[in-house]
Each structure stands twice: as structure tokens, then as C-alpha cells.
């Protein structure tokens, strides 16, 4: 019967196996495109030294290295600082400015500044519509948090200041637009605590 035909089919299949094993294309190395290595928060106030808080996580969330903080100096008491946040992916060359991505999907991102210490307060100074072509009304006025104001009181000492960036959060949930993270949900892109001083 077809035995011979069948066996020849099989040997063709065998050749196919053999030929397949030669496609040894060397894989291309990639970096995680979503890595955030660096966040720098600059706090400026008239007549005061600019304070920068930053961390550098050389291998992102994937690698074992813990992020290393750099804090330029103490904040001054009873001062209102203007804050601006810069987020980088320094595994790329030149480093990629992640701010652009956050601004591009402003409605999906929001920073939170969290502290219980020394009476420090913060307020958002930006809105989604600052970064998009949308009209400044309704939900487009929700904060993103790339810029903010931070006010210290007369109390001095050590404080913890935590910065959180979340994506795909619920900005309409109670308190979220005012900077309360409790009901925000979403996934964190950044979650880091700086140990600062107010003098």
C-alpha cells in the first residue's frame, strides 16, 4: 500500500526537523522600557536654597539593587516651596524623560505626596488639561501632580516624605483629587520615601 509513500513523507519531516535546528539568530538584548531609574524632586522658594530630593535605582524593579537616595539639604521652616518632579529612565542612552509619557496619558496617572510629620502640607498645582489639548473643565481639571506646592510649618526636625505615582487609578474616587491615596487603586510606578529634615 502507501507504506513507502508514508515513510518518504516521514523522512521529509525528519529533514525539516534537522533544518530547523540551524536558525541560531542571536537574540537582541533589550532593556525594560518601563524602568524608572531616577526621580528628582526640586523644591524652590524665593530667597531659599533649592532643595533636591532624588533616588537612583540602577536596575529598576527587575534587579536586586535598592534605590539610592540623594538629598541636597534640609528644608526651611515656615516656607512654601514650589515643587517639580522629573522622572527618568537612565538605562537608555540618552536617558528617556518619563514625564512625557505621564503627560501624554495625564488622565491615567497621578502623584501622591504622603507625610504625617511636622505639619507639612502639599497641594497640586497642575491639571490634566495643562498637558493635553482638552478644555480645562470637568474631569480634565483633575490633578496629575508633576508640579505642586509644599508648605512647612514652624515645627522643625526629621520627617518622612513619600512620593507615589500610580497609573490606571480611579481619579474620581473620594478624596483622590485632593491627594488622598486611600481610594485611588491602580498600580504604582513609583513608591519611595525620603527622610528629610526641616530646620
Amino acid at each position: 500500500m502507501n507504506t513507502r509513500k508514508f515513510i518518504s513523507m516521514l523522512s521529509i519531516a525528519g529533514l525539516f526537523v534537522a533544518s530547523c535546528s540551524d536558525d541560531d539568530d542571536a537574540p537582541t538584548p533589550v532593556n525594560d522600557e518601563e524602568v524608572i531609574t531616577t526621580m528628582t524632586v526640586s523644591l524652590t522658594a524665593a530667597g531659599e536654597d533649592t532643595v533636591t530630593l532624588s533616588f537612583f535605582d540602577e536596575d529598576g524593579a527587575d534587579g536586586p539593587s535598592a534605590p539610592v537616595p540623594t538629598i541636597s539639604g534640609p528644608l526651611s521652616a515656615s516656607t512654601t516651596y514650589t515643587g517639580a518632579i522629573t522622572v527618568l529612565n537612565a538605562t537608555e542612552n540618552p536617558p528617556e524623560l518619563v514625564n512625557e509619557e505621564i503627560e501624554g496619558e495625564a488622565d491615567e496617572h497621578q502623584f501622591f505626596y504622603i507625610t504625617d510629620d511636622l505639619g507639612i502640607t502639599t497641594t497640586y498645582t497642575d491639571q490634566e488639561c495643562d498637558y493635553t489639548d482638552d478644555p480645562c473643565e470637568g474631569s480634565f481639571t483633575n490633578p496629575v501632580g508633576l508640579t505642586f506646592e509644599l508648605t512647612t510649618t514652624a515645627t522643625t526636625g526629621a520627617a518622612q516624605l513619600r512620593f507615589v505615582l500610580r497609573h490606571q487609578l480611579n481619579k474620581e474616587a473620594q478624596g483622590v483629587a485632593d491627594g488622598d491615596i486611600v481610594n485611588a487603586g491602580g498600580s504604582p510606578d513609583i513608591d519611595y520615601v525620603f527622610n528629610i529634615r526641616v530646620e
Partner: protein
Amino acid sequence: MQRFTFISVFLLGVTLSFAQECDKTLTGKVIDFHDGKPLRDATITFNNTTIVTNSDGTYIINDLCAVSYAFTVSHQDCNSQVFTIDISKVKTKDFYLEHHLNELQEVKVTGKDKSKTSSSQEETINENIIEKYSSATLGDALKEITGVSSLNTGSTIVKPIIQGLSGSRVLMMNNGVRMQDMEWGDEHAPNIDINTAGSITVVKGAAALQYGGDALGGVIIAEPRRVPAKDTLFGKTILTGATNGRGGTMSSEIIKGYKNGLYLKAQGMLKRFGDFEAPDYILSNTGVFEKGASIAFGINKFEYGWDAFYSFYNTEIGILASSNIGNVDDLRESINDGQPDIIRDFTYEISNPRQEVTHHLGKLKYYHRFEELGKWTIQYDFQSNQRLEFDVRRTEERSNRPSIDLQLTTHTLTSDFYFDAASNYNLRTGVLLRYQNNFADALETGVRRLIPDYDKYDAGVFLTGEFDINESLIFDAGIRYDFNRIDAEKFYLQTRWDERGYETDFADIIINRNEIGSQLRTNPVFDYHNISATTGIQYLFKEKYNFRVNYALSQRAPNPSELFSDGLHHSAARIELGDLRIGQETSHKFSASLQWGNDLWNWEISPYINFINDYILIEPVGIQLSGRGPFPIWEYRQTNARLLGIDTKAQVTWFKNWQTDHRFSLVKGRETKNDVALINMPAPNVANKITFVKEDWFNFQASLESQYTFRQNEFPPNIEVFSIDAGEELPLEINTPPDAYHLLNMDTSLEFKVSKKSIIKTGLAINNLLNTNYRNYLNRLRYFADDLGRNFLVRLTINY
């Protein structure tokens, strides 16, 4: 069993001219092709004359003319065969008949003699049970077998666990092909449509060496329905609908068979469910959309046959939205909250996180039977498995790209010879050659490869045998050797390379130290030599007892995940770390079973102990700090382990129409060194079922089943991890099992005979009748949400 009539043969009979001298004689024997024994009482029919062979199988036909005759040779339990012989040239002729009709893929009820091994524990589920699970998964159906449980990710990703072991330790045979579907991942379910199987056998342990030597847990053998060698056309359609998930399944199959052994088979399946529901809330983003189709054709004759088979399987599965956690604080919150964060309205839409898996399987098989020797089989199979996992990424644009994109291609060539000529023993020997390639498309994902590109080469050779020592004692034994080589190309972050301490041990595998982003390009090549062996006996005594005892030695080489995992597994929000130093694990399993049964009741008790040296496990060990917060680290390690367990079951017929079924299984897994419990061991469970059957009422059946799952009281200690929220180390109850639970399930069915060939079966089932809130220790989503609530299912099976 259908015997072939001779009518057609008479029509075929070649009777030429009469003007001949008719004084020729034909003599010879009728012989069993299979073992060469002469066949007595075989009939030879020609031109309305029938001759019967005598006790030594010989025959004499006198008064033949010198022309061609068509002789029809028949024997009980054999297929009739027609031989055309020119009497002017031939005086003696031996006719070989094909014995053993069951080998001809006749429809035959699976009996004890069809078991895969003689001495190890095994159990088969039949078509009726498989039909009940038409809209569920293979893993769900297998839980009908004592000692089989499952590792779930939600309710749609179900990995079977056999006597405490799962993943790469459970080998899946789908229609004679070993599935290569990335079984290494906890959230990777077998890519098999349950509707393609006619029966599924579970061999608990590594005793079925012809399939592979690394089945420390066991082998699952799914076989298609058999096609009888006769002219027939039949099919089956199953429709199911369920309230939970608001969806259903449609599965259809049509089979055409011919008397000459030719057959054609086509099958298709479509399954669609939206969000499933727990008793108190919707489990958002848990829908599933599954498609499958297969086609098979071939010829099955006694002496030879071939099969061609192709199947396609595709599934898209949503992963519970609230399981998409960010970091360890979110995880702690979820564990402590007891309620999912995200509960949305019901939808059929599947959004991120989700996975999409496609599996192609092609197979060509040929067999040839040699007289008085046995059967030779050769098979080539091709598999292509693509896995895409989509996460909630930082931007919507990125979320449209998969975070994992793996393409696994496998070619396998196997050949074996089954020596079955002797009446008191049989031997099987075979070889295997396999090539596998994994391609991780990191340019598409923009994520570092969790599993690297690799080539894998396997070669194996085995010999197994079964010896009937006497009427009641069977001895079986086998040995197998497998060689595995894995040749990978892997990038390591310099920091990870240093943290793992690879520089001292593996500096020689580095190809380039200066890849982008401080990465190392390495080329790990590892060879493994695995020996497996088995031996055991089956002893039948006092008519009703069946005792089996088996020892199996099994070795398994580490899988790519255990070796190479390195980095953040986004969908699981955990860092998974493999280790290049991980070696093979070796299992010594001793199992026994004692069965007893009569017409009214039967029971079985099956204890086992499995010593596993260098058992590979993954468990949470701590956290890793990053700018995104702390992430839990799950690390692979090896330890010596001991699994001790028992499976028992019983079936009792109380009155004419009442029957009860009882099952209990228990396994205790511990590390031998410091006597710590192993992670992810199934909790003890007991199931009791009462069934009412009344054949007069359209074969009415109703059953009520109670399933009680104990709390797993043996688990490894929890870990303490730093919490940003609290600013201090806090215990994380990541290992704490949920409470015990009790479920009630109900099932009823009716059967209507519509015509001679057509039967319609209807069924109504209610799962989780009491709408009980529960969580299962072996469901990876137990941290985030309850398991399924009450579910009404209707099913309609049409056989035609």
C-alpha cells in the same frame, strides 16, 4: 462486535469458465497472524461451499478447477479475509488471520485489561464524566479521580496535581503526543480541549515509562474516541449553558468509518464565558473565550495503518482585575481586606491582565505488525505553542503590547516496537528524539525576557516488559534513559549576576560583558542524564482481591523556569528567581493498592510514599526594594522531601436504585532535613455522593455530592517584610491557608432514544448549591477574592 457478512464476498467470487478439469486440491493451514498458532474451526467459503479447519488448523479442498477462486477465510474473533488464489498455479496455501479485534480500534468498553501499567496506581474517567465537564477544563474533570487535585489561577486556569505534584512533574499525553505547552509556569494551564478526549487515564507516578521518565507526579493520557472498522457515520454534539459566567460551550464531532479501516474525523469547539461570580460579588475580568478544532484521518488495518492528526487550540483568558497588584503593600492590603478592590459590572469583555495562548499540534503515525513478533510504530509530531501575556502597563499604548511573548516549537520523532507474540509476556522498546526551540520576542514586549531563548535536545530509549508468572500474578519492570541538553542565550543584569554569585561559578559562559544597560550576554549549556526505572507486581487472589505494588525511580531535569527565571513576573507582581546551579531531582516512589469488589460494592485503598532528593520548589523568601516599592521575591531552591499519602474510595449499591460513592485523599509533604512543611500541598479532602438511578424513567439519574476540603494545617512559615505604609517590618500572611469549606453539588440527567441511532441526553447540574463563600489554598488568586458561587448548568448531548 460486528462480524462481516459474506454476501459481498459471494458477489466478488471469481467463477470463470466451466470447461475445465475440476480435480485440483488445495491444502494448508489457517494460522493466527499474531502468535503463529493454528486456528481450529476456521471456515473457508467459496462458491456456496464451506470448509472447516480441523484441530490443528489444517484444511483440504478437493475438486477445484484450474482457475482463480476467491476464498473467504473466517474465524471467531477474527476479521474475515478474502484471498484470491489461482488454482492452476498453487497447491498449498497457509492463510494468516488477524486475531485480536480490540487492536483494530473497535469500539470496546475499557476494561481492566486496558490499563497502562500492571502494577502502579491508575484510574480512568470515561466519556460520561468528560461530557459533564464539557464547559469546564481538563483539570476540573480529573478531580473526579481520587488523589488528583489542582493548582488554579482563578477558575479557568487549572493545572492538575497528582498525589501532591504538578507542573513539569505531570506529563500530558494528548492523542499520543506529549504536550509541550510551557507547563513550567504556575499560571499555564494544559492547552487541551477536554471535548477532544474519549477517555482520560491518570497513572499516578512514573511507572508508565514508555511516555517519559520524568513524570514524578504521574502521566495523564487523553485518548480520542475510537473509530470502528466498519461502514459507519456518527457524531455527537454537546451544548452547555451556565448561569455563572453567563456563557456556555458548543462542541461537535463527526466521524466517518469504512469497513476497510479508513476513517475521517472532524471536531470543533467554542466556549465563551463572561465574568464569573463569587457569592457576594462579580469576579471582574475573569471571562474566557476558547476555540478548538481538530481533524484526523487514516487507515487502521490489522497489519498496518497510519494516522494523520492536526489540532488547533486557542484561548483568551482574563485574569481577575484585583489581582493586578503593584507591590507588597498592595498584596498585604488584599490579604487583610478579604474583598477585591475592583468590582465592576458584568461584562464579556476581557481586558488586561489577560493571556492569549495558541497551540498547534500535528501528528503523523504509522504502524506495521509483523507476524509472530509484534507491532512497530513510528510517529512524528510537531507542536507550536505561543503564549502572550498582557498586563496593565504604565500607558495604554504599552498595554496593547504583550509583556510576555514566547513561541515554543517542538519536533518529536518516536518509534517503538511492541513484542506481544508470546502468551505469557510482552516487551516494549522504543526511542525518542526531540528538538525544541523557544523564542522570546523581547523587541515586541519591551520587557526583559523572563524565560530566555533556548534550544533543547532530548533523546531517550526505554525497555519495558510485562510477565504473567501465573494466572493470578503479573510482574512488570522497565528501564529508561533520557538525555537532555539545554542551550540557552540569556542576558543577566550585572547586579543580578553579582547578587547570585555567578561570577565564581559561571564566568566561562559569558560571551559579552558589555551589552546595553549593564547586561551580560551568556550562553549556558547544560547536559542532564536521567535514569528511570520501575518494577512491580499485580496479584489477584481469592477471586475478588487485586493487589498491586510498585516501585518507581524517576529523574527530572530542571525546566527553563527553574534555571533561568530572573526578574519581575508582571502578572504575578513578584520577582521570580531561578538558579543555574539547580540540578535534577530524583524520586523514589513506593506505592501499593488493594482493591476488592463484588456486584454490590467495591473499595480501593492506595497508600504511597515518595522520597524526592533535590526536590525543586519555589517559595516566597523576602522582598526586593525598588523605586516602585518593595516586591515579594519567590526563589527556587532544592531540598530533600518526603511525600506520604493515601487515596481511598468505595462504591456501594444499597438498594436497586440507590448507590453511594466515597472518596478520601490525603498527602503530607515535608522537607526531610528540618521537618518543615512543603509549600502548596493539597489539603485533605473527602467527597461523598449519593446517586439515584431509574432506567425505566428514560434512564433517570440524580446525584447529590458533598465535598469537604479540610484546612491545610501544614504550611511553611510566613515571611516578615518591610512595609512602606507602616515604615517597619510586618508579617506577610502569604503562606497562611484559607479555612476549610464544604460544597454541595447536584446533578440530574435523562436520556431519550429518538431513533435507532440517535440518543438525546439532557442534564441539569447545580454546583455550589448553598452558594458558600470559600477560598482554596491551591488557588493563586485566593489572596484577592472568593471562589465561584452557585452555578446552574444545563447540558444537551445529541448522539447521532
